[in-house]
């Protein structure tokens, strides 16, 4: 498919403020070249860039668009649809608290209150140290382990306040041990 361009206003492409490793880009390019329809890898490419950056920044979006032969808007159309693609900055650990029926019955509200208190943030916010972002999520399919949360898409449950404290402690320790990383 030929990429139609605007009849006017050629878009000046500025160098991306991205420090994505050449290896990753090369890997993505190869994956895209191997499939018949590059678009089918849209989510994978966005996820890969997001894992690298922590979130899908504007520059990462543009990079994804370039790799996939899509326009920035077309990438945004998908990125803003999906739960697990973040268009806004997030902390190093994204905590998704399941708030669907079973977890709610099992005391999700207590978990949330406890997290709010411990992290001093509300839903959608990131802690001042940039470690944790708190987000609600619909049923994650761990109803047998309710109340459950995801931390960077890894499940934990059933949870109690003390178990939560242990978890936070563990992640804080991990962050202290290996600073920097994917933020």
């Amino acid at each position, binding site marked *: 498919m030929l990429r139609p361009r605007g009849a006017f206003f*050629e878009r000046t492409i500025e160098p991306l403020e991205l420090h994505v490793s050449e290896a990753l880009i090369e890997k993505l390019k190869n994956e895209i070249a191997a499939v018949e329809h590059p678009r089918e890898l849209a989510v994978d490419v966005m996820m890969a860039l997001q894992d690298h950056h922590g979130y899908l920044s504007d520059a990462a979006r543009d990079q994804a668009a370039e790799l996939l032969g899509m326009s920035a808007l077309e990438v945004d159309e998908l990125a803003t649809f999906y739960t697990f693609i973040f268009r806004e900055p997030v902390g190093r650990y994204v905590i998704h608290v399941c708030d669907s029926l079973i977890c709610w019955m099992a005391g999700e509200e207590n978990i949330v209150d406890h997290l709010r208190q411990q992290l001093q943030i509300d839903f959608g916010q990131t802690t001042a140290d940039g470690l944790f972002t708190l987000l609600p999520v619909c049923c994650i399919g761990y109803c047998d382990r309710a109340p459950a949360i995801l931390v960077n898409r890894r499940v934990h449950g059933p949870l109690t306040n003390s178990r939560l404290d242990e978890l936070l402690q563990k992640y804080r320790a991990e962050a202290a041990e290996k600073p920097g990383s994917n933020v």
Partner: protein
Amino acid sequence: MPTLTIDNRPVTVPDGTKVITAAEQLGIMIPRFCYHPALGSVGACRVCAVGFKEGPIKGVEMSCMVDAQEGMVVATDDPDAVDLRKHVIELLMLHHPHDCPVCDEGGHCLLQDMTISGGHGRRRYAGAKRTHLDQDLGPLVQHEMNRCIQCYRCSRFYQQFCGYRDLGVTGIGTRVYFGRSEPGTLESPFSGNLTDICPTGVYTDKPSRFYGRRWDYERAPSVCIHCSLGCSLTVSARYRKAVRHEARFNAQVNGHFICDRGRYAYAYASQPERPRDALIAGRPATLAQAATQMSERLAAIEKGTGPDGIALMGSARSSLETQALLARLHSEKGWRTPCFSADDAATRVVSSALNTLNATNTIALTEIEGADTVLLVGADPIGEAPMLALALRQAQRDGSRIITVDPRPVTLPCAHDHIAVSGDDLATAVAHLIIGALEPSREIALDADQQDRFKTLKQETRDIPAAAELRAIGHALTTAWRPAFVCGTTVPDPDVPPLMGLLQALVQTSCMWSGLFFPLPGANTFGAHCLGGSDALFEPLLAAVEAGQVKALVVVENDLFSEYPDQQRLAAALESLELLVVMDCVPSAITARADIFLPTQTIYEAGGHYLNNEGRLQVATPVIAGGLSIMDTGGGNHPPREFREDIPGGTPRPAWQYVAGLATGETDPPDVKPLLDEALTAGVADGERVSLPSASREWPSIERIGAGPEGDAGGLTLIESAATFGSEPLAAFSTVLAELTPLFGVTVHSETAQRLGWRAGDRIVIPDSAPALEVVVTLDDRAAPGVLLVPRRIGIDRTALRRYMAHLLAE
């Protein structure tokens, strides 16, 4: 052909017709938001619910999603359906802002109509209203997302129908947002249609923002004169000012939409610099004085030199009335034959193109949408005739193959195969296509004479780099069922259109349907051709002026400087005239040089007949009487409180009236209709084609296909061609479009750039240009090597540009 009953009335419709369309045929307008005849059904808004009483489907269903089937009994007033529609409106109004009084859609808003007619009045939902931030979408379209009812028409139109990819839908659920990823000017040259298709006020027309209400507008059907396709428009005007063009449905020409050039060109008619008074030697005079002096001085010159001393110059943008009266003036007075274009190269191509057209091979724009293969030679739709690009897009969406053969890097909003061929090779390229299409089985069917001729053609045709590819395409054309052939009339040489005609005739023998389509340089080029203008060339006229044979020149609505490349030669020639009469409605470069200037009316005041590129006669109805806008006469404040008998700034008259005055010597305008009938439109109704010859005439000339390119092989050629904005002589004066006209630039193949030592983004200052001209270099490897491509631009120093380019070519 199922027959169904809708509201107790039977209707028979073709298979696959949706119930909503079937109802329309009975004049029953089922409410709709997401459904649009051009965009199809998607079933998103759920407001077109009707009750199915009998037949294969029972109960309440969406009339846009159900195919009409035999025996269906449909009730649009089914209580359950009415209740659903009512509640859908309530749901749509949950978050609709309370801003109808300040919304420009108010008064012609589909949502307003449906809300009132559905009986919704009170908001029961207790939650807060959802709000959205808006984006700046550029100078044409105003964005107000709060008003959105999520019908998805805009994103479907913009992406699927038009093929542009910078506006769409983001977010999910109640958060869905229609706009761009970042604020910025919309890239599509069809963006203005968003204001027409949006059923509420999310996208409104920015230039006419806040100007008035639909019910206050004077509205009249009109024709777009900003390219040769002749799209149908509705013009809205108020307080003596045309303020809006909207697309008017025309099943043959433009369908439901128009391009942005056509939509926003109208501002040329109300620009402050528009000349509204007669001038004698640059000084204001009354119309009567100027007209009298014109007749007297022309008579005096005629006395001295004979009728040959006076020449007439018309234009392709004038109405048929004006063109016909110029022809009449010539026949009455014996003055020189009117010439309608100063671009002789184009005139020659047009002439050979229109001589190729006949009653059986001419096709309309919308017919191209149904083609399964479209071959474009030397045509760049987005620049020359934007709506053609949209028709190609529809064809391609239906699976059609689009092939462009061009020296320019033609961009289309759809997938297409592009073959770069230098301008001199276009005729040869078509010859290769013909050879490809001439498979042995076909040759047997030819008579001896034809076989000989094709043999010659085969022998004569010289090899070009893309020959094999072209022959393969030519061969593929023979298996197409519905091929369409498009040929431009500015870039190719005169041999190309007849060769295209030959190719079409050859392919015609084996397909269901095929046809030729020639975008022309001007709105009424076809009219000028019919009135004999194609034979009159400008070069001899100019020579006669230089030789002193022509003493007086009457120029009607033509800025010679935008058409004739050598500005200095033209200026010197005009200087040598005894009398230069100019009639025009825009302040073009020639206006200031006129000895006598007569202001003419625009299409909004004068109306007129026009022939589009396929010879279709179309009428523009006058919409305003003329004169300065009340906004202007009031200086922005309230209108004057005194009465006066005339209209301020109302001096201009239709150009044809001035010409008629010269022809008859009478001041009262004659009845123009008999003149038109006599000229060519007798028996042709509005919207029909003028009569064309019944068959193609001659075997095309095949001289050029063998000749090598002019100049050295691998030499450079300069191509000036139309761009979407800035090239059309009237639209170039539209203040609305000024912002959209891109930086002036030259596009070249990277090899060529390397030869010239240019890099992308280089800015070249053209020496000795006035006004100073800077050219930005763009690289595009889809251009033919050796071609320097610049847009045609009104108001730039083309002499300096050509001089500089010639200097490059010489090096």
